[in-house]
């Protein structure tokens, strides 16, 4: 009656991953950030390079005053956001009079961050867009890229995942062209987190791994650890629990070395989830307790509540209702204001089950009712994510291609640059290298083109396959409709008309028995003969439409009847060989095979002037092979024009996933073969 398990942490973490790291750095690092700018967060990514510009000699003397104002405002952001905003506003107007465009852009950008932190998303978006305008005027790409990433963060918070990813990718494009590794690490991580959130796990892994590789190359251990946590989440969501454990073990070592409480909280909480999924509840409990320790150090209410939830869940699973109740009650209390929906839902559900088990049906019902309301809300959000994921998957096909091309270009450019040093070192070797590079570029271009062509043809093949499937579906519907109609007609003819004709014949027979005077009448005899002919004709038509034996006794008997009828009405000898055990999984297949053979034989009777026909059905491994061969006049297959019957044959074989082979030569008879997949015989 109540769903068994919920894994609260996963959603929660993916949802807020990008921002949680932000929170950590803003809280811990902000005081030092004036001097140690490198510690700035993802959301405040944008702060990073603009601050560096202070040191730029190009800065006007007046600009130092502006910079001090900006720094002061940044320091005020958390404690007194309104004052910070006021200062930024002042800088904006000030920097108009002293032409210091970058400062104006920065003020816009930072205002956006303050708005965003305060939850005023529309104002934040307006500020960011304004900042992009200003940065464009100044030709300051770093600023534009930062604004894009921040816009991505806002859209992500607004659950506009498609837009978020588009903005992130815009930012990434700029940072990639600037070769800005430090910011790329976080931009990649953010895209990875959103993609994971909308269940595009393959793509998420690509970006998270990019972030990981970059972090490693520049020795950014915490960036590396972030990426690992994200990758671990993808593994959890795709149920690759061993991989998740491995990556968290590795991440844990790094996080411990740096004693990073937030990462340690995330790692241990997710480990708890992994073990909970594996039903190792003791271990799940121990990691959940560790995560609580770090959550308390961080004093983050969402984390604390999540950790309580994980502990409560573990106690619940271990069959310790009292402890479970204690922790889950804490969750409900803690979460009420902090909106971690998943944890809250888990808590409500577990409480309902605990109360139910304790016999407090009414209390349980109360929890369930609250749960139901939240569940509907949650389902809506989930659906939105799935749809966003599908849209992204579709949209990013093209974008991925563009991005990978850009990357390849960049790599090539870098390769050329690197090789240039050799050019200086020696003309000869340079020549060789240049030739080599060009050869390489040409080769890689050729390969690229080839791959693109293959991709295109693959896509085309996919489309064709889809179209074909549709065609097959239509065909199946058509043929089945036709068969049904034939069946109905055959029954009407046989039962209705046939029955009446039989009764008529009987009555006429009675007249003959009782009124001897009719006996000599030629008209009377002719009338009787006509009734006979009519019933034979009705039977023949009915039989052709749908032989009763096919439905009643199966393909073999029906084919036997059919061949016998052909022999009786023509001078053709038919050799029919059907294995006794032949049995189709689907009666519709039998009907189709019957119709194909019927049509093939009818063709031979009508056109081939043959005296012998061989009909063979053989089951070889997983295929049913059918051959219809005659010794008639033959024809040139190349000049053959499909009539209605032949088209119907091809359609049915097509439907059965077979392929028709026609062999014939003038005056050498003809042979028709097709093989269709069937269930392998035991």
């Amino acid at each position, binding site marked *: 009656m109540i769903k068994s398990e919920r894994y609260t942490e996963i959603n929660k973490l993916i949802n807020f991953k990008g921002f949680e790291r932000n929170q950590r750095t803003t809280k811990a690092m902000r005081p030092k950030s004036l001097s140690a700018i490198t510690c700035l967060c993802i959301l405040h990514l944008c702060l990073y390079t603009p601050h560096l510009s202070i040191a730029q000699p190009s800065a006007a003397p007046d600009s130092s005053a502006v910079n001090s104002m900006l720094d002061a405002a940044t320091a005020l952001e958390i404690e007194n956001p309104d004052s910070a905003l006021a200062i930024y506003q002042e800088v904006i107007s000030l920097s108009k009079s002293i032409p210091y465009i970058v400062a104006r852009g920065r003020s816009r950008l930072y205002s956006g961050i303050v708005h965003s932190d305060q939850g005023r998303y529309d104002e934040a978006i307006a500020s960011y867009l304004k900042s992009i305008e200003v940065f464009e005027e100044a030709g300051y790409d770093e600023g534009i890229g930062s604004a894009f990433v921040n816009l991505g963060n806002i859209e992500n918070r607004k659950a506009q995942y498609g837009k978020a990813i588009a903005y992130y990718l815009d930012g990434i494009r700029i940072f990639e062209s600037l070769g800005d590794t430090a910011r790329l690490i976080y931009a990649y991580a953010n895209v990875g987190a959103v993609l994971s959130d909308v269940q595009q796990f393959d793509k998420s892994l690509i970006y998270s791994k990019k972030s990981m590789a970059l972090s490693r190359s520049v020795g950014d251990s915490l960036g590396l650890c972030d990426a690992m946590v994200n990758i671990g989440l993808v593994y959890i969501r795709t149920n690759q629990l061993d991989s998740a454990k491995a990556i968290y073990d590795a991440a844990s070592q790094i996080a411990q070395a740096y004693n990073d409480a937030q990462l340690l909280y995330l790692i241990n909480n997710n480990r708890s989830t992994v073990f909970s999924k594996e039903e190792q509840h003791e271990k799940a409990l121990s990691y959940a307790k560790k995560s609580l320790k770090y959550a308390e150090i961080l004093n983050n209410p969402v984390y604390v509540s999540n950790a309580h939830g994980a502990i409560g869940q573990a106690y619940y699973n271990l069959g310790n209702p009292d402890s479970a109740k204690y922790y889950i009650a804490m969750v409900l209390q803690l979460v009420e204001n902090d909106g971690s929906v998943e944890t809250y839902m888990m808590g409500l559900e577990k409480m309902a089950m605990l109360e139910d088990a304790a016999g407090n049906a009414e209390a349980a019902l109360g929890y369930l009712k609250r749960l139901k309301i939240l569940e509907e809300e949650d389902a809506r959000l989930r659906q939105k994510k799935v749809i966003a994921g599908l849209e992204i998957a579709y949209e990013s096909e093209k974008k991925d291609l563009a991005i990978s091309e850009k990357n390849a270009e960049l790599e090539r450019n870098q390769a050329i640059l690197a090789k240039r040093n050799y050019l200086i070192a020696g003309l000869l070797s340079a020549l060789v290298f240049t030739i080599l590079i060009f050869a390489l570029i040409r080769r890689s271009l050729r390969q690229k083109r080839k791959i693109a062509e293959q991709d295109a043809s693959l896509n085309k093949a996919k489309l064709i396959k889809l179209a074909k499937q549709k065609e097959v579906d239509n065909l199946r519907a058509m043929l089945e409709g036709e068969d049904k109609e034939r069946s109905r007609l055959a029954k009407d003819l046989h039962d209705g008309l*046939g029955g009446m004709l039989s009764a008529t014949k009987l009555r006429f*027979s009675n007249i003959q028995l009782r009124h001897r005077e009719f006996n000599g009448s030629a008209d009377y005899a002719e009338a009787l003969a006509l009734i006979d002919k009519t019933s034979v004709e009705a039977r023949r038509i009915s039989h052709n439409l749908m032989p*009763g034996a096919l439905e009643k006794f199966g393909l073999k008997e029906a084919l036997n009847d059919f061949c016998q009828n052909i022999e009786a009405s023509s001078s053709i000898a038919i050799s029919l060989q059907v294995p006794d055990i032949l049995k189709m999984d689907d009666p519709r297949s039998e009907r189709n095979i019957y119709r194909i053979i019927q049509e093939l034989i009818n063709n031979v009777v009508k056109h081939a002037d043959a005296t012998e026909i061989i009909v*063979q059905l053989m089951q070889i491994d997983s295929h049913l092979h059918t051959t219809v061969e005659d010794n008639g006049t033959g024809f040139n297959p190349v000049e053959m024009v499909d009539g209605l019957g032949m088209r119907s044959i091809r359609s049915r074989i097509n439907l059965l996933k077979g392929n028709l082979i026609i062999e014939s030569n003038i005056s050498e008879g003809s*042979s028709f073969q097709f093989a269709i997949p069937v269930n392998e015989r035991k």
Partner: protein
Amino acid sequence: MKKIGIYIVDDHEMVVNGLISMLDSEADIYVVGFALNAEDALFFLKNNRAEVILVDINLPKMDGISLCKEILQQHPHTSVIALSSFDDASFVKQMVRGGAKGYLLKNTSGAELISAIRAVANGDEFFSETIRKVLLSDSFGRGQQSFIPKITRREKEVLLLITEEYTTKDIAEKLFISTATVETHRLHLLHKLGAKNTAGLVKIAIQKGLI
């Protein structure tokens, strides 16, 4: 003279009435009753006796073939004549296997029907002319099919070329067919001759005098 009791099972009332009116005029035959379906017939026969039962094959729910078996199991001394508009070997064979002593088509003449009833009541069998032909051609024709499908003319051509060590490609070119078609023929030949590979194929073909 002992009269022959007839019971009729046919889902067409028109046909039943026609039969009754036809049989009424015969002195040695009387109709004990009729049913429009198999279930009613079995119920009636539990308490009533009939020497000959005329059974239509095409009945709603339980068909005439099953009914025939059921009647004969419960009343071994009765005789069943199938009265059907099916003249296919499959239906005739099934009825005969089910124990029917006679098989008539529904466009039978009154004289033939009466002859059949008398013959069957006398312990003989009666099949109309058409049905006899069907049974005969079935037992002579495909009824006696061999277990292994025979090798077709086209397959023989391919077999001959294989034994002459032609490659698949050569055979395809010689016979103006695709290599895939040659492979299909080879597969059929392996299956029919019970060979595992081409070498086995050639060996068995020689043993059996096929080439």
